[in-house]
């Protein structure tokens, strides 16, 4: 029987880490992810995990310690947000290229500046080309579930890549919700042991990690890394299917909500999808054919599946809680539209909204503006503005 509990998103992630019982956790506190290592350090102090907890002096060191631990042959985890993630930047790429399946709880927060501790996605979106798998979570349950699946995905022999599990800072990280936990023994059996093919502490077969890699070989390593990310999609689906059997909670590459006969669709990540579902329900009750797509997997980007799902709508609004400052649209928008163009899906009208920056509240009324615009575009076929801002004082 699953365990019925109530806890914050941060505690849910920390409890997942406790059940995974990794060899090493190295982390440095930063709002709003601080509670994750804080809870975890109490598990260490109470002796309920076997983990070596490394209280480092910076996030750069946190991820470096994880790289060392994982390269040595252990399972390493960390947690961070915003500028902490930015300080890890150099090591993010090294972890990915060294094919070290570290798992990170990334509690999304605005990347300074201006200095702000609240939620948007400018931290993890900036890391989108670092070679990490990125899973996004709407609520505490999803944050917990994604954490439990992350090791299995990253450590798969066809993948061997680090995984970042994202959830919205404060909105879900600090909100207490009901959720279902798995029993410790079930988690242990599901996650299993980490048995890398090659590792530093293997005295039978000594290796060097991170050697100089020049013109003759670097490109081949990058190509191999790209293949790992391509392979990850299938592995994510397999692991998610196995997880669904265990828990009854099924996850795909993205969630479709009321999209079957919808004319218009909103695409939105993380917690705002919850608010959007409420608005969709209201509109459906009024007979308006609106739907929602919530990407769960942003890296690898599910080009084929997402474009196929989006091809049937008349109008689509892609919501970005991060600006690319490219004068052309946010990261989710530019990736979705270029994917659609590449696949020859050009019939739907697609617009972009930058929303909720710096933790600006996103209310149902804000999302109604978006759905109303989409319904107008669907009926007139006219788009007056592609790149828009939602909820900013004009």
């Amino acid at each position, binding site marked *: 029987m699953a365990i019925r509990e109530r806890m914050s998103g941060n505690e849910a992630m920390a409890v997942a880490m406790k059940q995974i019982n990794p060899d090493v956790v190295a982390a440095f506190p930063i709002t709003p992810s601080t509670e994750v290592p804080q809870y975890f350090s109490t598990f260490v102090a109470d002796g309920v995990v076997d983990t070596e907890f490394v209280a480092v002096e910076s996030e750069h060191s946190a991820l470096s310690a994880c790289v060392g631990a994982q390269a040595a042959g252990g399972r390493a985890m960390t947690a961070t947000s915003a500028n902490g993630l930015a300080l890890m930047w150099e090591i993010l790429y090294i972890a990915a*290229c*060294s*094919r*070290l399946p570290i798992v990170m709880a990334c509690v999304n927060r605005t990347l300074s500046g201006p200095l702000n501790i609240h939620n948007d996605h400018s931290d993890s979106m900036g890391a989108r080309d670092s070679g990490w798998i990125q899973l996004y979570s709407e609520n505490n349950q999803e944050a917990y579930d994604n954490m439990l699946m992350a090791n299995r995905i990253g450590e798969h022999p066809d993948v*061997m890549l680090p995984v970042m599990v994202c959830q919205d800072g404060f909105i879900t990280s600090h909100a207490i919700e009901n959720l279902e936990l798995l029993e410790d023994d079930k988690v242990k059996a599901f996650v299993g042991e980490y048995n890398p*093919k*090659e590792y530093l502490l293997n005295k039978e*077969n*000594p*290796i*060097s*990690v*991170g*050697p100089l*890699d020049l013109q*003759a*070989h670097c*490109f*081949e*390593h990058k*190509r*191999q890394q790209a*293949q790992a990310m391509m392979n990850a999609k299938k592995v994510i689906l397999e692991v998610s299917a196995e997880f669904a059997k265990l828990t009854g909670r099924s996850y795909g590459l993205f969630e479709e909500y009321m999209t079957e006969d919808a004319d218009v669709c909103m695409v939105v990540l993380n917690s705002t999808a919850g608010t959007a579902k409420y608005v969709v329900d209201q509109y459906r009750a009024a007979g308006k054919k609106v739907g929602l797509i919530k990407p769960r997997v942003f890296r690898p980007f599910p080009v084929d599946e997402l474009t196929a799902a989006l091809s049937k709508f008349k109008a689509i609004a892609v919501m970005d809680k991060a600006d690319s400052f490219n004068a052309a649209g946010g990261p989710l928008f530019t990736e979705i539209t270029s994917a659609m163009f590449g696949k020859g899906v050009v019939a739907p009208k697609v617009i972009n909204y930058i929303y909720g920056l710096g933790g600006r509240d996103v209310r149902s009324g804000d999302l109604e503006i978006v759905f109303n615009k989409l319904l107008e575009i669907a009926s007139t076929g006219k788009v007056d503005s592609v790149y828009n801002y939602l909820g900013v004082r004009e």
Partner: protein
Amino acid sequence: MSKKELKTVSNTVTWKEITEGGIMPYAGNAHLFKTGDWRSMKPIWLQEKCKQCLLCFPVCPDSSILVNEEGAMTGIDFDHCKGCGVCAKVCPFKAIDFVEEGK
């Protein structure tokens, strides 16, 4: 080094065969990376002046002073010598000349 080992570090290895994550799974292959062509200056060993004091050997940053099993200096490994000139500077008997490459 076996043929398989040689393959993984060769310049013809494909992305499908190359080691995962750039790890180096075999020891003792740094000599395969020839760095001699980085050199613009060149040490010339003058055997007749050499007193076999071996002071040049420990200072070479590239292990390019060749010493045989009897412990005698026998010359310079030009596949790896980068022409830094430290050996020439250190030699107390002026037994190493230091000249421009190609001259």
